[in-house]
């Protein structure tokens, strides 16, 4: 029996094609995945991401605990509301999950974790939290909706209670504000401006209906995937998992190496790999015809090899793009094996698209 979010009836009403995603029955698309993608780049789209989970951490030692738990350093979060993207690692540096941590006050941080990993994350976090006296509260009373695109913020602010609206108007990128159980973060997974909102399920449904009436396009997980791929953002379970470490997953930039004496979980194993990872993570654009998908072979003129982890057609670019994990020595022109044919591709620096503009 698949789990359903509070917005399930809305998806059915809007004619969504529903699929099993990490045990949840979720919309892959409504009428057209391409139209949904373009709506986010040009206007405003919204995504039901209520299958993802908010986890609240409380206690005077919460910051100290997160400096141990996370590979990025929450010491960077000095202003209340600031958010940080981080990996949560095993002792051997395998990635348990990637998440966003919000600093609300010294007694309260909020994590947002992936749907498919929620159960194991809660177990791991609780196990580590005990020594710090930090309480772990799974906020399954809240749902999450992402509203993204150049018009997204204006559309959302119109629907917020006046005090929260003023705060949301003023909030900076990667920062959040809240009032009661309504939480508004200027974050996302599309490469566009916008908000991710966490609020009680009944309020979430009402907000969704008002946004839909105001022309915000309902978008499925299909468009979410092409948008995040263009934005150069990794997907847990596809681009990385517990068998991979951040340095071979394009996530070296998220590691808080300084200060050197911060003893986060996985640091010892990761330090031994620093500068010595046998594989690296690259982004590529297909130059020949076809569509690159995940798990296709990649080869380079210098003999280096690898495999794509995510790939697809990039609607904003009208070409095919991919991420690949390849030998560390790989460089220059490369080819991807698509259905038995080697097709030329070139390495580029992600992101491919940001704020509606093609960057590569």
């Amino acid at each position, binding site marked *: 029996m698949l789990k359903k979010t509070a917005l399930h009836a809305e998806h059915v009403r809007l004619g969504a094609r529903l699929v099993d995603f990490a045990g949840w029955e979720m919309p*892959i*698309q409504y009428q*057209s*995945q*391409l139209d949904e993608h373009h709506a986010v780049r040009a206007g405003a789209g919204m995504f039901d991401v209520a299958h993802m989970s908010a986890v609240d951490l409380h206690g005077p030692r919460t910051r100290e605990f997160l400096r141990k738990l996370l590979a990025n350093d929450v010491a960077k979060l000095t202003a209340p509301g600031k958010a940080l993207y981080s990996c949560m690692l095993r002792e051997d540096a395998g990635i348990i999950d990637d998440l966003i941590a919000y600093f609300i006050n010294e007694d309260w941080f909020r994590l947002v974790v992936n749907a498919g990993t929620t159960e194991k994350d809660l177990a791991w976090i609780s196990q580590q939290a005990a020594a710090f006296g930090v309480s772990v509260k799974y906020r399954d009373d809240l749902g999450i909706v992402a509203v993204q695109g150049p018009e997204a913020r204006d559309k959302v602010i119109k629907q917020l209670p006046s005090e929260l609206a003023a705060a949301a108007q003023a909030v900076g990128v990667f920062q959040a504000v809240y009032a009661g159980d309504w939480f508004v973060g200027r974050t996302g997974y599309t490469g566009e401006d916008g908000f991710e909102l966490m609020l009680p399920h009944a309020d979430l449904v009402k907000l969704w209906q008002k946004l839909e009436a105001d022309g915000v396009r309902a978008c499925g997980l*299909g468009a979410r995937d*092409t948008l995040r791929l263009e934005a150069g953002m990794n997907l847990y379970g596809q681009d990385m998992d517990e068998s991979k470490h951040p340095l071979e997953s394009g996530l070296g930039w998220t590691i808080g190496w300084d200060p050197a004496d911060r003893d986060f979980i996985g640091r010892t194993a990761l330090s031994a790999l620093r500068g010595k990872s046998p594989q690296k993570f690259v982004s590529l654009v297909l130059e020949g*015809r*076809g*569509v690159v*998908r995940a798990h296709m072979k990649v080869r380079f003129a210098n003999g280096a090899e690898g495999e794509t982890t995510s790939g*697809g*057609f990039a*609607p904003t670019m009208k070409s*095919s793009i991919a991420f690949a994990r390849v030998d560390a020595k790989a460089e220059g022109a490369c080819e991807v094996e698509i*259905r038995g044919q080697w097709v030329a591709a070139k390495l580029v620096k992600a992101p491919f698209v940001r704020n509606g503009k093609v960057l590569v």
Partner: protein
Amino acid sequence: MSNVPAGLKYVKSHEWIKKLADGTVVIGITDHAQNALGDLVFVEVPKVGRKLAANESCAVVESVKAASDVYAPIAGEVTEANGALNNTPEILNSDPYEAGWMWKMKPNNIADVDALLDAAGYQQLIDELN
């Protein structure tokens, strides 16, 4: 509800085929197929002159989601391919039976067409899939 025009013939791998006045046939994928695939972003059609066996995989349609093979409904030689699909694959979504045709061929035996499913037979097939 998928559109299944009368007067065409169909195969269970979701291609349609139509006899033309000059003795050749024209082939494409059905409305049901394009709808199941989703937005098409890349189409590869067989080269003119290629000789195809019945049920031979000879073309590819790729949507935002996945790649699918397209099969020759009957044996024959390709006489023309729809070049418009190179740059506007979306016409296969919007008009699968007219503008979105894929290739034409000269059949080895035109009578092979008659043995394929008619519209009612194909409709029954897709009803069973739903």
